[in-house]
């Protein structure tokens, strides 16, 4: 909110208070100063009167003026381009040497198309006044001053009420009381220990009330009304225009301005009705209507059951706390009016306002919370102003409907509690002083305990912790010294899953992969892409997305990773190796996922030695993760991914753990690559949560054989479709544990090998932990291995 320093000064004594000290005090008591602006900024101004206007010979729009700048400066020649110059117009002159506007523009005498000009006639905008506060006319020409403006006056900003400082305050959500200038002044008075000067008016009623008020809704428990007659709608006096302008509100007419001014000062939204347009003698608040309603903004809104509405018993007159109706609006001919000041439930106002997309200063104040008790003060202030500024002469009695329960707002607290909470040792006398300054009544129960009664406008003070905050923000900041918690020892650290996850991430980084971070919310169109781990699961959709691009919660990391690859491809980076770990949540299940994408080439040695990534890169990375987790490959089931549209049917794998799919990996399907505008791309996605849960055998040293092992190499021809895993498995099945290792070291297809066959070179390692194998033993196992191969159709090459 914007605080006008000039306005604030009317209600609290700020004489001799340094501005920067005030700003510091505000910020460090919870009223953060977000900015300080001068309403206008100018030096070297004077009020002048145009004596004559001549056209400039050399220009179609410039005028040469003779301007009387008063006794001190005499008559000066000024060249001016504004259209609205005329003889005897009183104007603001920036003299030779003047500095004007927020950008500190310097005005100097100069020749304009050959004619001497000793200054400039100004618009308010040129003096730095925000455009939004000015009328169209004011923006299009120089400022036209009142005909009585004193020629020669040099403090022009003061004369215009523009010598104000605007303080922009970030009022915290719990301190809505400070949105009322009166309460803000009280806060400042407490902070600076300065005298308050808030007037209280009471206008004696000179007639009985002609209206009845009531509420049929439990969401409006208080409704007060005063009828004022014989008002005159006219322009507001300058002081009121200036006060509102400082607060960023444009002046409309005296009645509207009074309403805004009362709201500004008391924080209470009031609403005024033209009672001559209402055919009833009764105001009833209801929440059971279903009908259309035309509001002051001339738009139609549909009122629903549940919306709080002020009615004349039957017809709606006002969307309670939000906006009045066009049917009973004040206009230039209004004469008799009713002023309403009520307590509408913030919940109801918020709901209706949100649903209709209709907000006003009034609704925003109701939503944030109002002082529930100053309705009479607000009505009396409005009455006083109507009497002074709108010639009102008949004031009926205030009628009030009020069924609010009396609540006990006392808070039990103790000085020691506050010190314990803050970690301070502030003397209780000092705390009492703070409470007194804040108008919080203290009743001492004993040495330490007390009852506190906060003032009615402090609706945020509800419990002992709230009181500790008052002490904290007023005097506690300087009293608190840094300490560390003295509490029972706790063991810090990552849990086993977090530890494994971090190790895997660091491992992948050490393999020269780059970690990335992508959005959880993705476009619904790509939600199923590569989501093989969550194939039949339903994804969460956001009800109120910001864009379609981010509208559903992803079921797989891979589509996001492909976007990263694509982005980099489009930015001169063709070869990318990336990974991400992230939570995946679907309607049925959630897990930590790891996604890896390799695209393009692996650079073994700069550009000297590069090779394309292939299936075995992605597989190798997966195998290294299994080793880290201590998972033997035998515990997993591998299957080719044949029937899918995302992966190459014969260069991909599905991995099962106890019949649960925990991973997919491989080369992308050429069709899918084409769709994603990718080439030579390999991807992996695994369910880290499941894999990290696998219990692996605890580490224990195994004895190392003292006896040498023997290796022998074999070349044989076998059908192409027999894969290595089957060969290894069959050899191990046929032979004994004396075969320590089966390794493949060459695969060859082509010349000298029949068409549907391949030649494979195997190295078998024979050995025992308790003796050196003799030739007889070796050849026995060797024969078994060879017959194992034969059973697969393999034939030893001679």
């Amino acid at each position: 909110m914007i605080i006008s320093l000039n306005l604030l000064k009317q209600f609290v004594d700020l004489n001799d208070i340094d501005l920067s000290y005030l700003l510091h005090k505000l910020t460090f008591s919870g009223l953060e100063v977000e900015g300080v602006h001068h309403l206008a900024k100018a030096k070297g101004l004077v009020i002048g009167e145009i004596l004559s206007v001549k056209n400039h010979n050399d220009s179609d729009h410039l005028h040469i003026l003779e301007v009387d700048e008063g006794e001190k400066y005499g008559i000066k020649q000024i060249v001016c381009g504004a259209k609205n110059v005329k003889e005897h117009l009183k104007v603001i002159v920036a003299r030779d040497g003047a500095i004007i506007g927020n950008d500190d523009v310097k005005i100097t005498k100069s020749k304009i198309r050959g004619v001497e000009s000793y200054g400039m006639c100004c618009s308010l905008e040129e003096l730095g006044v925000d455009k939004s506060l000015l009328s169209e006319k004011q923006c299009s020409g120089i400022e036209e001053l009142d005909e009585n403006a004193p020629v020669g006056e040099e403090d022009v900003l003061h004369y215009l009420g523009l010598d104000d400082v605007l303080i922009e305050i970030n009022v915290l959500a719990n301190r809505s009381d400070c949105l009322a200038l009166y309460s803000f002044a009280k806060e400042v008075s407490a902070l600076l220990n300065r005298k308050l000067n808030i007037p209280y008016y009471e206008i004696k009623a000179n007639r009985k009330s002609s209206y009845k008020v009531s509420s049929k809704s439990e969401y409006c428990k208080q409704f007060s009304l005063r009828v004022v007659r014989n008002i005159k709608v006219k322009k507001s006096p300058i002081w009121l225009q200036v006060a509102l302008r400082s607060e960023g509100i444009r002046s409309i007419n005296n009645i509207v301005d009074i309403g805004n001014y009362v709201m500004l000062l008391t924080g209470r939204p009031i609403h005024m009705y033209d009672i001559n347009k209402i055919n009833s003698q009764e105001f009833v608040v209801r929440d059971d209507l279903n009908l259309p309603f035309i509001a002051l903004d001339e738009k139609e809104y549909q009122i629903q059951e549940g919306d709080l509405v002020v009615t004349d018993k039957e017809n709606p007159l006002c969307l309670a706390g939000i906006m009045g109706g066009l049917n009973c609006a004040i206009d230039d001919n209004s004469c008799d009016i009713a002023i309403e000041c009520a307590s509408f439930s913030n919940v109801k106002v918020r709901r209706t306002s949100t649903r209709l997309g209709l907000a006003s200063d009034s609704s925003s104040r109701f939503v944030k919370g109002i002082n529930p008790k100053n309705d009479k003060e607000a009505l009396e202030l409005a009455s006083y102003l109507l009497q002074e500024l709108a010639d009102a002469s008949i004031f009926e009695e205030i009628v009030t409907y009020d069924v609010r329960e009396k609540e006990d707002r006392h808070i039990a607290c103790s000085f020691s509690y506050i010190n314990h909470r803050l970690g301070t040792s502030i003397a209780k006398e000092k705390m009492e002083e703070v409470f007194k300054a804040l108008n919080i009544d203290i009743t001492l129960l004993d040495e330490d305990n007390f009852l506190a009664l906060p003032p009615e406008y402090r609706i945020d003070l509800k419990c002992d912790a709230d009181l500790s905050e008052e002490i904290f923000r007023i005097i506690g900041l300087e009293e608190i010294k840094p300490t560390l918690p003295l509490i029972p020892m706790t063991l810090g650290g990552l849990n086993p899953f977090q530890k494994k996850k971090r190790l895997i991430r660091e491992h992948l980084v050490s393999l020269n992969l780059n970690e990335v971070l992508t959005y959880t919310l993705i476009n619904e169109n790509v939600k199923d892409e590569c989501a093989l781990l969550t194939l039949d699961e339903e994804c969460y959709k956001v009800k109120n997305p910001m864009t379609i691009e981010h509208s559903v919660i992803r079921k797989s990391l891979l589509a996001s990773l492909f976007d990263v690859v694509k982005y980099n491809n489009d930015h001169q980076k063709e070869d990318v190796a990336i990974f991400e770990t992230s939570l995946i949540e679907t309607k049925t299940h959630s897990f930590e996922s790891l996604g890896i994408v390799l695209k393009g080439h692996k650079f073994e040695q700069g550009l000297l030695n590069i090779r394309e990534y292939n299936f075995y890169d992605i597989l190798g990375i997966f195998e290294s993760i299994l080793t880290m987790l201590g998972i033997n490959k035998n515990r997993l089931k591998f299957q080719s991914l044949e029937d899918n549209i995302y992966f190459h049917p014969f260069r991909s794998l599905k991995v099962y753990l106890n019949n649960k799919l925990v991973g997919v990996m491989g080369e992308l399907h050429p069709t899918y690559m084409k769709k994603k505008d990718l080439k030579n791309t390999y991807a992996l996605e695994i369910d880290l949560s499941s894999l990290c849960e696998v219990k692996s055998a605890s580490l224990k040293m195994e004895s190392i054989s003292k006896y040498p092992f023997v290796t022998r190499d074999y070349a044989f021809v076998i059908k192409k479709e027999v894969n290595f895993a089957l060969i290894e498995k069959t050899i191990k099945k046929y032979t004994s544990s004396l075969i320590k290792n089966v390794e493949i070291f060459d695969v060859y297809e082509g010349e000298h090998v029949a068409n549907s066959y391949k030649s494979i070179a195997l190295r078998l390692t024979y050995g025992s932990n308790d003796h050196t194998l003799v030739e007889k033993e070796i050849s026995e196992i060797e024969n078994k291995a060879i017959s194992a191969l034969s059973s697969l159709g393999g034939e030893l090459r001679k």
Partner: protein
Amino acid sequence: MIDKIKEIARDAEKKIANAENIEELNKLQLLYLSKKSTLMSFMSEMKNLVGEERAKFGQLINSVKQDITKRIEEKKKILEAKALEEKLKKEVIDISLPGYNYQKGTKHLFQRVVDEVSDIFIGMGYQIAEGKEVEEDHFNFELLNVPKDHPARDMQDSFFIDETKLLRSQTSPVQAHVMLEKNGKGPIKIISPGKVYRRDDDATHSHQFGQIEGLVIDEHVSMSDLLGTLELFVKKMFGEKREIRMRPSYFPFTEPSVEVDISCFECGGKGCPLCKHTGWIEILGAGMVHPNVLKMCGFDEKKYQGFAFGIGIERVAMLRYGVDDIRRFYTNDMRFNEQFHKE
């Protein structure tokens, strides 16, 4: 005969000296020292001699043999060294070419900050608590003292999934889960890093961003402990010279609440564009856990109290590493990501 031997010796000396390679030398060895060589054949003459003459003759042959052997050995060493030198010369490579690629990749800056902050707090005895991102309204708001229709809900425009579920708008619901799990018994000392979501998007706001929530609860945990803890954290994260200050603020789940500023690490507090000439930079929000939150989460609010704080992950990273736009974290331009390579 003696003359002949001496001639052989002279001849051998000359030829050995002139030998140009090992092969030639090996031939000379055979020529002079094999059993069939002229020199050795003189040995058989020995039996025809007697006495002193025989001894003298034997000594001569031996000394010539030793001399030749020695000369061959020495020459061999020289030739071998020469051969090696030549071989090495032929093996010259360009040692200025790049080495094979054993470089590491780069951790994402976001994760780097999470890991750094986590390690600092782990060192102080904190555990890491993580939660789900699809959260119940009850945990994201209600247990944190933000009932339905509370104006504070407008402070955080959330992504709703249905009436009761939303994408968490803060990491604070993890607090509530941890407290309920602890069944009213302290102490609690956790941080919970994670992603959160709000309907917001510009150079300093992203609809997805990271927070690290901290929570300490026990019987005597005070505001001054919060100040001390954060001061320690800030010095570790931003340098020993950093100072911190608190400003009163408002969060529904803490009372009192504060915003915490650190002295600007760019200018040391003198004022510069980074700190908007104030000398201070706002880095986190914190406060004493509201008694209502303790109560709703199963703790006796008369016995226990504690503090909580929330750090913006990208904010810390942007400040510390001079990142100009939050969206860079999510674009993953490798030219950006790879800059944060150094440990």
